[in-house]
C-alpha cells in the first residue's frame, strides 16, 4: 500500500500547486498595477481583437474600432448626440462652427478650431483634413474612400483653419460624413501618414492621438487596451468641457453576458456594453452600485435604432401589402415585448425609433393621425391602432415590478412607448383571403396552392433579444396556421441580409441621429435607385429592397432642404404615413441596450434623468461622459 500512499501524495501535491497559484480572486477585470480609483474599465463589445496591434482605423476592418481608438483617441469635425448632449445635441468638435453651405449645396466650408494638438505636439490644421480626404480618395480601398470620392471634386485651404469642399453634385448632407453618430470620417495625422509609402499596410502602432487620451498599453492577444489621459488634454476638443475624470481607461473583452455580470458584481467592470435583460435584473437586484440608463426598470438605453420584422419585398409572397399587414395584425406586441425584453422594451408603431428627440418630434404629434388611421380588409374598414398599449404593458408589469413602473403617462410613453397595432386575426384572415390565400383545415395555403411557410431569420447569440422576439413572433404566426420557422443565421447574417437570402428577418433598416430630427441618415439609402435586383447584393440599409415612387419623391425633396430646415420634419411625417400604409417592415421597438454602469469607483454617468450623452461605450459619442465622471468619495 506504500505506493498508493505515495501516489496520493503526488495527487495532493498537484492539487496544492493549483491552490497556491490560484491565490486571491483576480479575474482579468482588475488591472493589477493601475490605481483602480483612477481607472475606468469599459466593455469593448468587439470581444477579442485578433489583430490587436493594428490601429490604422482607415483600413477596412484591419483592426479594432471601439477599443477606445474611435472613442478617445480620434476626432473629427462635428458630433450629434443621440441624446440631449452636454450643451445641445450638436457639438462643434474640431470645427469651430456649423458647416456653411452655398445656396445650391455644391460647396461646404468648415471653419476649424485653433490650438488643437496631436499627442506628439504637432498642431492640428486644415492640412490634416485635406490630407485625410485626399489620401482616401487616392487609395480606393480605405474605409471612407468611396463616399469621399463620390462627393468631393476639389478642396481649398484659404487659411490653415478653413477647408472649402467643392462638391461634384449638390448634397445638403455632405457634412454628415464628418459628423459622428457612432462614427464618422476620422481625421488622419498628415505628419505621420505622409511618411509611410502604403497607408493600407501601415499599422499606426503606436497611434498618435488627437483625442484626450493616448495609448498606454495593450494586450497582444487583443483582450484589453489601456489608455492614459494626455497631460495636455486642454489642447484637445474635449478640453472645452473640463478635465476628464478617469486618468486611465481600460477597454476590455468582458466575455459572454454571464461573465460580464459576474465581473461587475466583483466591481471589475465599470461599464457593461450590453447584457441579457435577466443579467441586468440580476445586477439591479444583487449589486446596489449598478444601474442602467433608467435608474430602475426598464434600465436599458434605447438606441436610435428601430428593430423591425423586415420583409424581403422582392419575394412574391411579400410583394402584396395585404400580406404584410396581415402578418403585422397577427403580432401581439405585448407578448413580443415580454419575450424579448421581459417588458423592458420601448415600442414603436411607426418607422422611426421612439428615442432621443423623436417622440416629441414624430410619435407624439402623430397620435391623432394614427388613431384615425384606417385600413380596408376588403370586407370592412378597421382602425388598427391602439394608443394604450404602452400603458397596458406598464400595467402588466406593475404587479411584479411595483413602484419601479412609472405612473405618469408621459413617463410611461418615454419608457414603454405609446401605442401599437392591436392583434386582429379576423382582419388578418380577411386580408390574406383578399390576397388569394386560402385556409385549409388549420393551415394556410399560398395563392399558388403551396403551404404558406415563413422563415424568420435571426442573428442568434450575438443579439439574443432579437432572437427571442423572433421566436415569439414565429409562435404567434404558427398558432394562426402559418408554417413559421425560426432560422438562426449566426455569423452568416450580414451576407444573407445583403444577398436578400431571407423571407423575413428581425433586424433594423432604420437608424437615425437620435438627437436630431433629420431622417436622411437612413432614409436616403431607401431610394429606389439603390434597390438591387434579386440575387445581387443590396447596399445598406434598404434590406427590405422596397421601392415606392412616393418614397422616392419624399427622399428627393429631403435632399433639397437643409439639414436643420423644419421642412424636414414635415417630410419625415409623410414618410411615416407612407410606410404605415405600406408596411414594408413591421416596426417593433427601439434597440434597447442594457448598458450597466457601476458606481463603486465612478459617479456622474449619463442616465434618463440626466441624458447628457450616450453611455453605450462603443459609440464615438460616448467620449462626452468622461468629462462628467467623478471619482466616488
Amino acid at each position, binding site marked *: 500500500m506504500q*505506493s*498508493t500512499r505515495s*501516489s496520493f501524495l*503526488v495527487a495532493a501535491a*498537484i492539487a496544492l500547486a*493549483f491552490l497556491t*497559484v*490560484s491565490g486571491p*480572486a*483576480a*479575474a*482579468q*477585470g482588475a488591472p*493589477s*498595477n493601475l490605481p483602480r480609483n483612477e481607472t475606468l474599465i469599459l466593455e469593448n463589445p468587439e470581444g*477579442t481583437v*485578433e*489583430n490587436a496591434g*493594428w490601429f490604422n482605423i482607415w483600413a*477596412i*476592418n*484591419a*483592426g479594432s474600432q471601439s477599443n477606445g481608438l474611435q472613442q478617445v483617441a480620434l476626432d473629427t469635425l462635428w458630433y450629434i448626440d443621440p441624446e440631449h448632449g452636454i450643451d445641445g445635441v450638436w457639438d462643434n468638435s474640431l470645427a469651430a462652427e456649423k458647416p456653411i453651405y452655398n445656396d445650391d449645396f455644391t460647396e461646404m466650408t468648415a471653419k476649424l478650431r485653433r490650438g488643437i494638438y496631436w499627442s506628439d505636439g504637432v498642431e492640428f490644421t486644415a492640412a490634416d483634413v485635406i490630407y485625410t480626404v485626399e489620401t482616401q480618395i487616392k487609395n*480606393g*480601398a480605405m474605409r471612407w*474612400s*468611396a*463616399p469621399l*470620392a*463620390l462627393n468631393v471634386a476639389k478642396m481649398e485651404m484659404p487659411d490653415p483653419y478653413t477647408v472649402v469642399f467643392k462638391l461634384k453634385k449638390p448634397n445638403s448632407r455632405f457634412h*454628415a*460624413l464628418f*459628423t459622428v453618430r*457612432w*462614427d*464618422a470620417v476620422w481625421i488622419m495625422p498628415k505628419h505621420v501618414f505622409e511618411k509611410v509609402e502604403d497607408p493600407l*499596410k501601415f499599422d499606426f502602432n503606436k497611434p498618435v492621438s488627437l483625442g484626450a487620451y493616448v495609448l498606454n498599453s495593450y494586450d497582444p*492577444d487583443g*483582450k*484589453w487596451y489601456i489608455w492614459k489621459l494626455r497631460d495636455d488634454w486642454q489642447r484637445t476638443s474635449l478640453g472645452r468641457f473640463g478635465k476628464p475624470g478617469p486618468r486611465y481607461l*481600460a477597454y476590455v*473583452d*468582458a*466575455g459572454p453576458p454571464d*461573465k460580464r455580470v*459576474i465581473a461587475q458584481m*466583483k466591481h471589475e467592470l465599470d461599464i457593461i456594453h450590453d447584457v441579457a435583460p435577466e443579467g441586468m435584473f440580476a445586477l439591479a437586484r444583487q449589486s446596489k452600485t449598478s444601474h442602467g440608463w433608467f435608474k430602475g426598470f426598464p434600465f436599458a438605453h434605447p438606441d436610435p435604432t428601430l428593430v423591425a420584422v423586415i420583409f424581403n419585398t422582392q419575394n412574391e409572397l411579400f410583394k402584396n401589402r395585404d400580406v404584410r399587414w396581415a402578418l403585422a395584425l397577427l403580432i401581439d406586441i405585448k407578448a413580443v415585448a415580454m419575450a424579448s425584453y421581459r417588458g423592458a422594451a420601448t415600442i414603436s408603431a411607426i418607422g422611426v425609433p421612439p428615442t432621443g428627440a423623436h417622440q416629441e418630434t414624430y410619435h407624439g404629434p402623430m397620435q391623432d393621425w394614427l388613431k384615425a388611421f384606417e385600413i380596408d380588409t376588403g370586407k370592412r374598414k378597421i382602425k388598427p391602432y391602439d394608443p394604450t398599449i404602452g400603458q397596458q404593458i406598464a400595467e402588466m408589469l406593475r404587479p411584479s415590478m411595483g413602484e419601479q413602473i412609472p405612473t405618469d403617462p408621459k413617463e410611461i410613453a418615454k419608457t414603454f412607448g405609446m401605442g401599437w397595432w392591436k392583434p386582429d386575426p379576423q382582419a388578418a384572415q380577411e386580408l390574406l383571403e383578399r390576397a388569394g390565400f386560402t385556409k385549409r383545415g388549420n393551415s394556410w395555403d399560398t395563392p399558388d396552392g403551396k403551404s404558406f411557410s415563413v422563415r424568420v431569420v435571426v442573428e442568434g447569440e450575438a443579439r439574443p433579444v432579437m432572437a427571442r422576439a423572433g421566436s415569439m413572433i414565429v409562435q404567434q404566426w404558427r398558432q394562426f396556421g402559418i408554417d413559421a420557422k425560426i432560422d438562426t443565421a*449566426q*455569423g*452568416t447574417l*450580414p*451576407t*444573407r441580409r*445583403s*444577398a436578400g437570402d431571407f423571407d423575413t428577418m428581425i433586424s433594423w433598416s432604420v437608424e437615425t441621429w437620435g438627437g436630431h430630427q433629420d431622417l436622411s441618415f437612413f432614409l436616403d439609402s431607401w*431610394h429606389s435607385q439603390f434597390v438591387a435586383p434579386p440575387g445581387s*447584393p443590396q*447596399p*445598406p440599409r434598404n434590406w427590405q429592397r422596397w421601392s415606392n415612387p412616393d418614397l422616392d419623391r419624399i427622399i428627393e425633396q429631403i435632399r433639397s432642404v437643409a439639414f436643420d430646415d423644419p421642412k424636414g420634419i414635415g417630410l419625415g411625417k409623410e414618410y411615416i404615413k407612407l410606410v404605415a400604409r405600406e408596411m414594408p417592415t413591421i416596426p417593433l421597438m427601439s434597440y434597447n441596450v442594457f448598458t450597466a454602469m457601476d458606481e463603486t469607483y465612478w459617479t456622474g454617468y449619463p442616465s434618463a434623468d440626466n441624458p447628457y450623452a450616450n453611455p453605450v461605450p462603443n*459609440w464615438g459619442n460616448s467620449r462626452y461622459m468622461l468629462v462628467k465622471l467623478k471619482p466616488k468619495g
Partner: protein
Amino acid sequence: MRGYLQYFAKRFGQFLLVVFIGINLAYVITRATPIDPIEQSIALATSFGNSSPEAIDAMRRSLRELYGLTGTPIEQYLIFWRRVATADFGPSLSAFPTPVGALIARALPWTIGLLAVSTLITFALGNLLGGLAGYYQRSRSLKALGIIAIGLHPIPYYIVALVLLIIFGFVWPVLPISGGAAMNLPQGFNAAFLGSVARHSILPALSLILVGLGGWFLGMRSLVSNIVAEDYVVYAELAGVERRRILWSYVMRNALLPQFTGLAMALGGIFNGAIITERVFGYPGVGALLVDAVYAGDYGLVLGVTTMSIVSVSVGVLVIDISYPLLDPRVELK
C-alpha cells in the same frame, strides 16, 4: 534497424495520408461556406456609421480585387496547396492585411501550452492511479477513485467546463474565469506574468484534466489487472522480487505501452476539448481564433487554423508512434 525503418516508413505514410485527407476535407467544406468575406467586411465597416449606397458598391469592387478572390476553383486549389506547403496562408481577410500565419503564431503557444500541461498531467496521473487501482485491487480509496472516474469520464468537455465556471466563477469566485493572463501585465518571462498565466490556466486545464483522467484511469486499471496474471509477473512474485520493483518495472512499465498508443489515438479528441474549453473560458488560443474566424467568414484564417490543427495533431501522433519503439523493444519484429 531495418525493421525500425520499415516501421517508421509505415507510420510516416499514415501521417501523410491523414494530413492529405484532413486538409482536403477542410478545404472542400470551407469553400462551400456561404459567407462572403466582402459582405462581411462591408457589414462590419458600415453597420453603425453613415454610408451612402453608391459608396458601398465602389467599396465592394475595390475590396474584391484587394482580397484577390479571383481565379478558377482549380487555380485556387493549387494556390492553396502551395500555401500549405510553404505554411503561408496569405493575409487574413478579417484582419487584412495581417498574414494568417501571424495570427496563428500569436495564438498557438497558448493552446500548445494548455494542451501540453493538461495532457501530461492527465496521462501521468490517470495512469499512475489507474495502475495502482489495478494492482492493489482491494484498496478502498482506489476503488472510490474508480467510481469517480466512471462518473466523470463520459461527461463532455462543455458540461464539465460549464460546471467549473459556475462553481469557481460564481458560487465560490476564487479563480479567474476568462482570459490568459491578468490585465496590463507585459508578456514575457517574468514571475508576475507567468504566475498570472498559471492562475488563468487552472480552470481550462482542470476541465480538460477531469474529463481526460477517467479514460486513462479505467484503461490502465483493466490493463494492469490483466498483466498481474501474466507469467512473468507471477514468476517474479514467486521469485520474491520486491513488490515495488514488480509494480514499476514489470506491471506499470508493460501496461503503459498500449496506453501510449492510446494517447496517439486520443490526441484529436483532446484537441476538440481544447477548442471548447478555450471558448468557454475565453482563452486566447487557436480554438477561440478558429471560432472567430468561422464567424467572420475568413477563409484564409479558417483554413489556416484547421490545417494547422490537423497537421499538428498528426505530428503529435507521429512523434508518439516513432518514439514507441524506444519503449517497447519488441516493436521491430512487428
